[in-house]
């Protein structure tokens, strides 16, 4: 393979290979502990379980690569679920409801981007604020109640987002894959993608190179809000109603999928191929530990430990670079 092709394909692949090996080992261990783990039915469910985590992981990866964090992603899932369900129960055409929901989520993404890049608020604080606001909107939109059933008129919507199948795979999986392909293309092959990496890698150099810091940061937060919106719609289609606590704790899952997959919390590193593996590890751990009868608390503890170890490894590896003789002039 020549350099030009290699260059396009190689960013952060080392980490992806490592976590892929980890994923394979996990699957083998759970398969030995319970052979039903490999059954076709469980595999189908597992993929459907992974799809939403993959989506929010992709959104969070975009933001993390710019060196920021989006804590509002879970609340945005809840807001998307509640807004879309409320509009549908009020009789709106489901697809129109989807468009309006997407628009409202994009507004939150835009606000996040502007608060962080334009008004220079720390991302932790800015998205903590919008997290509370988005959850508040999710609660207020139907007067602090979960919605009723979205009804038979939304059958097409439910099939499209959750129950339907295309080419033998659930639509949820297809939606996740299509969005992943689009966002992966943008991140790895386009100028915008390179600017996203540049901002996270060296903000000063990016500024000097004429990168539009505000615009690029806003784009990353918009991707995050699109992903969160889609997950909210999937949850709405799954349950057939809007639930106010939808997406609770998803911000942790999103960060977990990203960092396990090799995206650095310090920015500038990682790719969303790794996020697939990160989401898969999360899904396999949840599913596999359930299979071996581990209680929810143990599952959470295991995932929490894996996230901490992943971030710790990242910090250790990256801190080494500043001691390298090459940067000392």
């Amino acid at each position: 393979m020549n350099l030009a092709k290699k260059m396009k394909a190689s960013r952060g692949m080392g980490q992806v290979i490592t976590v892929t090996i980890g994923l394979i080992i996990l699957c083998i261990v759970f398969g030995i502990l319970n052979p039903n783990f490999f059954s076709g039915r469980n595999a189908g469910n597992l993929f459907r379980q992974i799809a939403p985590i993959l989506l929010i992981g992709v959104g969070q990866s975009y933001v993390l690569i710019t060196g920021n964090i989006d804590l509002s992603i879970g609340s945005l899932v809840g807001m998307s679920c509640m807004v879309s369900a409320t509009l549908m129960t009020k009789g709106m055409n489901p697809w129109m409801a989807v468009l309006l929901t997407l628009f409202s989520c994009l507004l939150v993404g835009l606000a996040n981007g502007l608060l962080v890049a334009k008004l220079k608020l720390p991302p932790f604080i800015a998205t903590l604020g919008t997290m509370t606001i988005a959850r508040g909107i999710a609660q207020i939109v139907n007067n602090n109640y979960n919605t009723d059933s979205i009804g038979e008129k939304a059958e097409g919507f439910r099939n499209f987002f959750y129950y339907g199948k295309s080419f033998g795979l659930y639509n949820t999986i297809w939606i996740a894959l299509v969005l992943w392909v689009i966002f992966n293309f943008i991140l790895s092959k386009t100028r915008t993608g390179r600017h996203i990496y540049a901002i996270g890698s060296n903000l000063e150099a990016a500024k000097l190179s004429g990168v539009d810091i505000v615009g690029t940061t806003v784009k990353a937060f918009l991707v995050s809000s699109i992903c969160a919106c889609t997950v909210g719609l999937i949850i709405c289609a799954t349950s057939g109603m809007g639930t106010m606590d939808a997406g609770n704790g998803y911000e942790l899952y999103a960060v977990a999928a990203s960092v396990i997959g090799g995206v650095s919390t310090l920015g500038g590193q990682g790719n969303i191929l790794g996020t697939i593996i990160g989401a898969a590890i999360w899904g396999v751990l949840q599913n596999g530990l359930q299979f071996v009868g581990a209680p929810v608390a143990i599952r959470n503890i295991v995932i929490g430990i894996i996230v901490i170890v992943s971030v710790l490894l990242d910090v250790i590896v990256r801190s080494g670079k500043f001691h390298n003789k090459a940067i000392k002039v």
Partner: protein
Amino acid sequence: MREEILRIENVTRKKDGVVCLDNINLHIFKGEIMGMIFLTSHGKDELIELLCKNLPIEYGRIYYKEELVNYYEYSSMSMNQIYVISHNDGLIGNLSVAENIFVMRKGLKKHLINQSKLNKQFHRLFPEGLSGISPEKPAYELTHYERCLVELYRAVVADCKLIVLRDLASFLSRVELTKYYEYIREYSRLGVAFLYIGNHHEEVFLISDRVALMKEARIIKVLSKEEMTDEHITPYTISFEVGEPIPGETAGMLTFKQVYSKNMKGVSFSVQKGECVVLLDKSSDIHEDFLDLIYGRSKVLSGSIIYKGKPYTRKEARKAILQGILTINKNPIKSMLFWDMNYMENLIFLSDRKLGCSVMKTRILESIIEEYQSYVGKDIYTGNLKELEPASLYNLIYYRVHLYNPDLLICIRPFADADMYLRRHIVELLYQLKEKGITIIILSLNVADSLSIADRMMLMEDGRVIKNYEKKDFDVFF
């Protein structure tokens, strides 16, 4: 006999398996200003690190204030009372000058801090004042010069007998440096010893009592006061002459007409296409203004800027890169590279914008590789920039500009912190850009090596251009 402050005897130190200090012998006496010139930067950080902290050494002994503090069989890892003043800010930004001097030091027993008492103490110790610096002024408001001055006082109050001054000329202007030398001499008379590290012998000779020349981690020569002449240093230096002078064109590239801004007071000059001009700022307050105007961060209060024959408004300035203006920042290895990207991604970073394509075609990438491989060799295949030497990293920064081919390049202190060989390399890289017809403006605080590449030099002081030197007049600086 003079009291010895520091004695380094046959010290050899390795770091990551590489010898960074090789059989070093150095004596510094009370009140002495010892100069040190690193012909190659290898060992510079490690020596300063070792002076401050008693780290393990392979061989030799170190005495500080006539006491054995470190030897090859046992290194205590303790800290020595040696203060380093460098371009890194050693003060706490949000604390006042007095707090930085009196509170932020070892051995302070008091728990309650009274600012008015600190102020009194400040005025008692420094009755002549600190060049008009108020003891209550927060450290983040200090200029580089004021900060260095406060750090000097802080070191004296902390009873440091040896102060290391590192590369002051890279961030202090000539005027500031001259004033600072007076303080150094005053304290050396009071018994404080200094290790003055600089890159240029012209600068180090001015202040030092003796000068040690370091090359490849070894002291190769110690010059006495009498030996501090060009004749004695010449065998250890290299020529900075590059190629034939490249004539500039007559077409104007950038013109400032009676420009007034925060610090500029009617600045007028013109730079021709293909010219290399040094803007030497003696008082170090104009460069920031110049960059702010070029990048549209501030506006011209009066006067006008003409770029490529057209008025250069703030609107255009905000898109300076698209107008063909690039900047190489000071200390570009830290500020211009994307360490998470590979060599090629760094090299082409600006070019995709110029080509107007969001997705760079493989065919174009391959042609870039083919062209630039002849300049940088196998470095172009490097995945991890950390594997590269400083000279290769400088190649990457300058060839990125070469590939982008801007109309105007602004270099901010390109030679700061670089050793002699690296400076020579930078001169060659600048010459290549000049050969390509790129107009270059070098913003500098001292004459240094810029003149070996420059066609003209403009001396700026107190917000004005006070003198314009043509290439034939450069002899006055040598």
